[in-house]
């Protein structure tokens, strides 16, 4: 049987961050992902915020990894060349009665490890002077200067690519169905296809499925509650409506509805919070989308909802205990959890990765690799280049002169490179997340046929096998209606 030192289950941002940090050690690491690509669950549909760290309960794992992750994210953005912008955030207060809660957030931020320079309480007018679109009802606001925005897709891909560069293996469409103990020192992980792989250490980074994975080995059960949140994404034309991330005072189910620019210049509003039974329920509802509009409209005057280009739903993996579950599993030595990773999970991922990699390396008695290369270069982003940079790139490869996605100015060269990377795009969604083809205002109306062709060419598969994401999501069909059983 194939044997690895470490198996990581889940190639979301947490799994990929753990993989990237483990790659710094002399360990043989395999990442198993049930979808066709990295960043296919919770990591792909969230607010894309690097939270400052004032919100989580002092002393919680959320607070600790938030503060550490926020600092580490900035460093990583340099090492791994992904889109990141420290734009700052406001938490708005709409009534005199709630003023105390703003002070509480400030105090908690300081206790959590932020400095007085990171936080400031502004009057309503001071807040509006910085963000003129804010509602007239704002009486005061907490200003968190270290809050940032990031591209969650590029972050996850960058972590994964960097792990692969340093010897990590990723296997996709590989759903874990069973984990059994193998002697005193290790596990056997069984996949849906009955394939089995042994490993000394198993890391559970399975997002909304982390309870199922954990409960395969542990008697101390976890319970993950998928919590659905709907978002509205608006055109880049109105991306400048606000410059900072605009929160409202947090409620029982989370941080509430925010309004934020994205790192690519769109405007994002959401999420709602609704507990659902199905961990794959990513359906938006009219009620939730209306709720986003109503709530966002409280923060920002004249929200440009006529400029919505798409809506989506993300699922947070809420653990019953309310905190992250990170570290060794008490009754299954060698099994490590990174579970209950809901907000501020994206922020925390780099710190969780570093921490768990260190713990596992210590337990394994592994040495540091001397040849670890912690850098990665982004796929060229023609839209953001100067004409001189574009010309230089085109001289090397004329595919970078051929625009395929006109809304986002994405070239054929970028799309081909996104597929050639390792791990590379295997689907339309994979291309979209890596290079933004189809992310723009026409929502892939024009570029779909061409991106399909390029995927077909690069992957050596017929057009009929090109998928939106995992198998079953083919864009074309092969049989006619008479063959298909029309009722």
């Amino acid at each position, binding site marked *: 049987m194939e044997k690895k030192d470490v198996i990581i289950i889940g190639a979301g941002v947490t799994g990929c961050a753990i993989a990237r940090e483990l790659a710094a050690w002399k360990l043989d690491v395999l990442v198993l992902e049930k979808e066709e690509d990295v960043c296919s669950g919770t990591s792909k549909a969230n607010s894309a915020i690097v939270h400052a760290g004032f919100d989580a309960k002092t002393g919680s794992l959320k607070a600790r990894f938030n503060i550490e992750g926020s600092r580490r994210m900035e460093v990583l953005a340099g090492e791994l060349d992904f889109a990141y912008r420290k734009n700052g955030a406001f938490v708005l207060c709409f009534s005199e009665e709630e003023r105390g809660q703003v002070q509480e957030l400030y105090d908690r931020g300081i206790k959590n490890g932020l400095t007085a320079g990171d936080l400031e309480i502004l009057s309503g007018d001071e807040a509006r002077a910085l963000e003129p679109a804010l509602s007239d009802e704002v009486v005061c606001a907490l200003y968190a200067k270290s809050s940032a925005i990031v591209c969650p897709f590029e972050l996850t891909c960058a972590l994964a690519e960097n792990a692969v560069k340093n010897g990590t293996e990723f296997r996709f469409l590989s759903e874990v169905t069973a984990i059994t103990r193998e002697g005193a020192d290790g596990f056997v992980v069984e996949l849906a296809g009955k394939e089995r792989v042994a490993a000394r250490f198993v890391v559970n980074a399975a997002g909304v499925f982390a309870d199922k994975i954990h409960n395969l080995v542990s008697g101390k059960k976890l319970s993950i509650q998928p919590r659905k949140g709907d978002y509205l994404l608006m055109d880049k034309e109105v991306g400048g409506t606000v410059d900072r991330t605009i929160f409202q005072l947090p409620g029982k189910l989370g941080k509430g509805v925010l309004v934020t620019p994205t790192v690519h210049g769109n405007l994002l509003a959401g999420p709602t919070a609704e507990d659902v039974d199905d961990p794959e329920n990513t*359906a*938006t509802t009219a009620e939730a989308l209306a709720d986003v509009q109503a709530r966002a409209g409280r923060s920002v005057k004249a929200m440009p909802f006529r400029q919505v280009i798409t809506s989506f739903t993300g699922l947070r993996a809420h653990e019953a205990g309310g905190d992250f579950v990170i570290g060794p599993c008490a009754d299954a030595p060698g099994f490590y959890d990174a579970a209950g990773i809901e907000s501020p999970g994206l922020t925390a991922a780099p710190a969780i990765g570093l921490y768990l990699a260190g713990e596992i390396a210590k337990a394994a008695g592994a040495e540091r690799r001397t040849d670890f290369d912690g850098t990665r270069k982004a796929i060229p982003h023609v839209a953001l280049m100067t004409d001189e940079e574009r010309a230089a790139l*085109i001289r090397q490869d004329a595919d970078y002169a051929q625009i395929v996605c006109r809304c986002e100015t994405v070239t054929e060269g970028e799309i081909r490179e996104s597929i050639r990377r390792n791990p590379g795009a295997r689907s339309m969604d994979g291309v979209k997340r890596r290079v933004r083809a189809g992310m723009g205002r026409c929502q892939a109306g024009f570029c779909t046929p061409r991106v399909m062709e390029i995927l077909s060419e690069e992957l050596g598969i017929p057009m009929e096998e090109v998928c939106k994401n995992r198998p079953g999501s083919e*864009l074309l069909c092969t*049989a006619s*209606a008479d063959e*298909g059983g029309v009722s």
Partner: protein
Amino acid sequence: MTDANTIIERGRVGILVIGGGPAGLAAAVAAKRAGVDDVLIAERDRMLGGILNQCIHNGFGLHTFKEELTGPEYAARFISQAAELRIPYLLNTMVLSVDRDRNVTIMGREIGVRTITADAIVLAMGCRERSRGALSIPGYRPAGVYTAGTAQRLMNIEGFRIGKRVVILGSGDIGLIMARRMTLEGAKVLTVAELMPYSGGLKRNIVQCLNDYDIPLQLSHTVVDIRGKRRVEGVTIAEVDQARRPIPGTEVSYDCDTLLLSCGLLPENELTRMMKAGISPVTGGASVDDLLQTDIPGVFACGNVLHVHDLVDYVSEEATLAGENAAAYVSGSTGRSAADAIVEIGVDGGVRYTVPQRIDVGHMRDSVTVRFRVADVYRDRTIAVYRGEKCLSRRKTRVLAPGEMEQVKLKKEELAGLTADEGLRVVLED
């Protein structure tokens, strides 16, 4: 005669036509025939002809050529004219930016990234379709949701089958055409749902594409849910009230693998906005005068980038005018009055907009065609043109619908001495 590469090397061109679809082709042909030797077409796709190449159905050209052609045939007529006139063009080439002085950055496989300055520009970039995202249709986001035009391209250009059981939302012309097309290719089109109480398409397409194939059209209906985590498994359609809100209890579920959207076309005016040219909030296209000139001198617009047309014949006619006027502009023969002598055309009684939006009475041609659309379905109305309180023309109509473009002609002799204070209006009357 100069070839495209020479023009690019030189960094200067007389008239740059942005877009090589029906509008761009007609404009370029007209400009060249009007005596400007130096015309260049920049086309982002891999062939000239634009959207017509995928419109393989007939019904084109009845006005222009007095015969019924398919889309590709209609395009081929103009492509041949452009070839005979040896008009240079660049394919796979996209204009990235343009400023008010008509400095244009252009990128393509053959030329790399270049900057050229144009003496005049004709904007002919066409339009795009309203997407599922822009419509905020709730539900899952699986494969199998296409705009009608994307589906049309995949079927008619690329030669693929996209689905077996189809629901269509929106009764725009492409959606209607695709209902028939998919039926002919063996798919079952279950229904066409239209949010509005009337169709957005041409009457003839309702008859020929739906009625002839027994495909039900449900007016005042919309899609309220999309099912299927990977590929579409079904959609739910509900009736809507007068405020276009779904009526609870009217939901009907359809098992299907494909949802096509034909819910409106949006002029692609990114470059126009980049130049900060005035845009009409109603048409989504540039606001133009009777020369089809935007508020930036030397920049003209025509076709679906200016306003969405119903028939390509009108696109050709409009674009011919834009090309001729661009030619006149570069040869210095365009007279224009001071801005305050140019009269805005007012609208009333259900006329949504006019193109052109304003007219230079002092320098207009003997006759200027003004095109417009109406806001609702109207029966037995009169289209009237008023100069101040004086009626210049009236025409009785039996049915007016938002899906069909209307026109009136303004005659120079009737407008002599007209001032902005006096006013000019196109109105619908009982």
